[in-house]
Structures are given as C-alpha cells and as structure tokens.
C-alpha cells in the first residue's frame, strides 16, 4: 500500500523568480502534473505545504500564492538547509513533490468586515503576500474594511515581491508603507524599524485585526506598539514556524504544550500564545 497521508503529489516548476539581491530567496511557481491534484488542493492564505525534492527530503513552506491565482502554486524559499538548497539548485521543468495544504491559515471568515493591518518583516512576508492578494481580489475586496500593509526590510535589496508591490501601490483601496532599517540611496519609502514605523502610522484598533509576521525581535517590539495603540491580544494574529516532518500532527516535534503547530496553527492569536507555554 502507498500510504496516502505521506505520498507527495508531483508538480513541475513553471517559473523561478529571484526575490532579493543576495539571490538566496526565490519564488517557485509549481504546476501539478495531474489536474485532479490541483482540484483537490483547496487552500486559504496562511496555510503551508510540505515540499519534496525526492532523494533530499521534505520541508514545510508557507504558500505564497493566493487561491485567487488559479492554475499554479507559489512558494518563496530561502536557501537554508538540505531541501531548500536542492530547491535552489533546481531549474524550470524539474519535479517537486508536494503534500498539503496543511495548517489552519489566516481566519479569513472571522476577518470579514474588519479593517486589516498586515505587518511583515523580512522574508516572512510570503503568507502575507497570499493574504494581501486574496483580500484585494475583486471577489473579496468588498467583504473587508480598510487594508493597511506595513512591510519592513533591512535594505531595499531584500524587499520581496516587487512586481506585486508596484501593482498594490497603484490601488486606492490599499495603504502600503514600505520601510528599511537605514537610509539608502534611491530609497523613497520610510526609514526605521517596523515597530516605530507602526507607531508613526498608528493604525486604529477599532474593528481591526493585525497580522504580524517576521523575526522574533520584530514581532515582540511590534506587539508592544500594537498594544500601546489599543489592540487587544485577540486582535493580534501571528503565524509560527516550527521544525516539522509530517505536517499532519503525527511526527510529534512541533508541539507547544498540547497543541501542534502543524494542525492547530501555524496561525495563533496573541491571546492563544499567551495561554501556551513558552516553548516556541
């Protein structure tokens, strides 16, 4: 028997886009070999999948595309370990295995009629890209209130998704603020760490939900600012990363207390995190 739970579905790489100057972050566009597999892959923003390079292994990666972008899936991958390095060594038309979608994803139903503040730092923006694309899609935009995107990077060369961001900037139903850590030549956006920039922009907590993704220190400082602005712990959402193998709550390692990040998360409200042990 081929164990269905652990069998990757096969895809081919349609396109590879380098996302940063350091060239260690790339977005892979994957197309399923079988149409049925595509039809069965029903996902929402914030979910993840297990990507396989057969012979190298498998690793969990957040889905960067939005379900409103049909036909293919996008994953933004930083070259870090064995599998991600093998991904980076791949070329178009190469085979990538995929299992998923896994995890709870952003609570897009509960976010309806709310103002959405999307805050990202560095390359942790991938599932926020998915969320942003989803929210501004013509079939969804009217369901949500004001949308504010605040995205910070160390320097302009690390900014992901430039074509998308250029498109977002042209819209009048989306406020986007880009910031970098220090002044740089040719940079016209804001300057400063994400947390003080959020403070400067001061999004209103009224009927709002804030999603925060980024490195731990950025998350911590940003949460402090959001709380100062009056956001409650229920209004602040985070997406966690954890070492994972199976992605389906069986291999054990991604637990925080009695929760598994792979099936109970990766998205948790700050309120939930405050009630969980400090093991993430």
């Amino acid at each position, binding site marked *: 028997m081929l164990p269905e739970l*652990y*069998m990757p579905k096969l895809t081919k790489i349609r396109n590879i886009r380098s996302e940063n100057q350091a060239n260690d972050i790339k977005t892979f566009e994957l197309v399923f070999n079988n149409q049925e597999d595509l039809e069965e892959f029903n996902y929402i923003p914030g979910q993840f999948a297990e990507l396989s390079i*057969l012979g190298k292994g498998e690793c969990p990666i957040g889905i960067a595309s939005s379900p409103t972008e049909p036909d293919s899936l996008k994953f933004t991958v930083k070259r870090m370990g064995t599998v991600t390095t093998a991904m980076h060594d791949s070329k178009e038309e190469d085979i990538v295995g995929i299992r998923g979608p896994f995890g709870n994803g952003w609570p897009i139903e509960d976010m309806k009629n709310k103002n959405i503040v999307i805050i990202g730092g560095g390359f942790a923006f991938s599932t926020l890209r998915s969320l942003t694309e989803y929210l501004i899609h013509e079939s969804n935009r009217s369901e949500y209130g004001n949308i504010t995107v605040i995205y910070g990077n160390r320097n302009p060369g690390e900014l992901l998704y430039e074509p998308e961001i250029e498109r977002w900037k042209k819209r009048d139903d989306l406020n986007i603020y880009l910031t970098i850590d220090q002044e740089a030549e040719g940079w016209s956006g804001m300057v400063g760490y994400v947390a003080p920039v959020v403070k400067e922009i001061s999004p209103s907590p009224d009927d709002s939900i804030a999603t925060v993704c980024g490195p731990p220190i950025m998350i911590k400082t940003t949460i402090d600012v959001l709380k100062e602005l009056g956001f409650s712990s229920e209004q602040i959402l985070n997406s966690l990363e954890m070492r994972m193998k199976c992605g389906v709550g069986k291999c054990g390692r991604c637990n925080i207390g*009695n929760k598994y990040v792979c099936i109970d998360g990766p998205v948790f409200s700050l309120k939930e995190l405050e009630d969980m042990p400090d093991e993430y």
Partner: protein
Amino acid sequence: MVEKKLEKIIFKQDLDRLFEESLKDFTVYGPIEKKGNIVFEKIDKSDNLKLNYLNSKIPPKSVIFPQTETLFEYEKKDDEIIFKESNNVGKKRIIFGIRPCDAHSFTLLETFFSFGKFEDDLFLKKRENTILIGIGCNTPKNTCFCTSVNGHPFKDDDVDIFLVDLTEKYLVTPISDRGKELIEGISWLNNANKNDLKKSVELANNAESAIETNLNLDNISEKLDNNFYNSLWKEISEVCIGCGTCAFLCPTCHCFDVIDEEDHYNNRGRRVRIWDTCQFPLYTLHTSGHNPRSSRIQRCRNRILHKFCYYPQNYDLIGCVGCGRCIQYCPVNNDIRVILDKFQKLSEEEEEKLLVA
C-alpha cells in the same frame, strides 16, 4: 447481561500444533530470548518461545511500527518519478504472548494515529490486520505500575484472545469477535473447567497484590499544567544525560523523523520514517539555529507532560501503560513514578518556586 466467554484450555505441549496447524495462515510474532533479552520476533514453532518472560526490552509495538519503516520507494525514469510500495501492510499478523500493558499501548497508539482530520493509514491498516493474543502477568516486576495507570496485570480488554499460564496449560479466553471466531475454528481445544477459572482468578489477585507501586494520579494533568514553570523540573533534569532510552523503549512513544535515502547512481531511493525522541535537541532545532526546547529541563518536562498532561487533555487518556521500561533501563535511575509523586505532593509553598529563565 453476562456474556458467555467460552474459555478453553491448551496444554503447553500442544503449542506447536497450534502454530503449525491452526495459526498457519498468519505470520506469528512471539517473545523469544536473544542475547540475554526478550525480543518479539517471527516464530513458527514453540521451541524458542518464552512465555514466562518478565517483559521484552523493545516493546512489541515494533512489530507494526518498526524503528525504521519505508513509507515508499521511488524510481526516476527520464522525466518521470514512479512510486512503489514497500511495507507489507496486508500481511495477517498475530502478536502472541503480548503483556496487557503493551497491548494497552496498541489502543493508545491507535487513538493517536487516528485522531483528527488526518489518519495514519499505514499504522492503522497494519493494526487492523494484527491479532493480539495476550497473556496475564503472574509475576510482575518491581518496576511495574500498571495498576496506577488504569491497567492491571490481567487486563484483557485490549487483546483479541487472552491467555493465563496455569503451570501445565494455558487458559484461553476469547475476547473480541475475531478472537472468538479464531478460537471457534480450533476444534481440538478442550473446554476449561471451574478449577481452571478459579485458579486464574487467584493468579490475577496474587499478581495485583505483587505490584508494590500505588501512585495517586488524581488530577495529575492539572497539577503538571499548573506547575509547568516549577523549579522542580531543574532538579529532575539535572541527572538526565539525554540518551533517549526512556523514549526509544516506551511502548506509547510514537514520534518519528522522516528522511530520504537515495541510491544516486541507480536513480532510485526511498523515504523512511525512523523513531525519534523529544529528548534530543535536534528534534526541535530550526534550520535558523533557533531551538524552542534547547535545554534539558524543557526536554525532560516535555516527555512527562506529553504522557500525563497533553495526552489526557487531547484524548482523555493517560499516555503511559506502567510497563516500567523507562525506569528499568534509565542509566541514571530517573524514575517516572518518583517524578510524578513529587509533583503530586508539592506543597503550596513549593508550588510558588519557579524556574528562573
């Protein structure tokens, strides 16, 4: 209504007939002695079988959840990848002579692997095709504590057929429907008499009273939950060397790693799962270098809490069967009974003492 159980007996000298005639359609695994330990291995006759064993070192969960298990094999052909199965899921197995504690671990593993939206079809199919023939423990060890965790040396409800060693013969009690069916098909077994049943009850009572440990585990889940940050964890983990023996020999531990093995020059390979343990720092190490359980305090705590706090919270079950292997084989004599007892007996004052971060 008291259901008629139709107890039978089998004389010890007839065991070969049982294996050779009546169970020949199954692959039978039983406890045999090897290199000074008991192991569950394939048997086809009773020669090496050692049914008066205390317990096996490696738990019999390994028969259907082996330390290394192939999930699938693959072959790369031109631009294609072809998957091949490699796991004998359909094999009809019998685990003969499993102890009640280990049989109960099968129930726990079944609950875990079928829990939630995702079912581990590989484990569950193997479990479905495996018949458990258990045997009561006439002489429990001093590390046994099954009676403290809802078990009993003669607990028979996790097996299909239950045996009791009556010295020159075994009492054979069919428990499940398929156990009954199997026994009904063996025409040459004699019916048990009143004395056999009486002796079995006596043995059960003797075994129960031979277990010296009597832990009070009332509300242990809440107690552990409330004392997550208690400084007692530091004391408990101080002697631990992080070898992972407790987890690798645990009948209820189910965590695994998944790796690929590639035969590069022949364009083929396989993906395997391998037992893993929360006692190793690598288990939770992120590729970034961050480790959410970087200290031994955290790792020791996770093992105890998984069994006695998270398992009860998630599945309303205690994740321990009281087999005592983790106590018997721990190289530094860490004793799970002592650990639980210490938490149970924390005074209000002691509950205030927290770990310093």
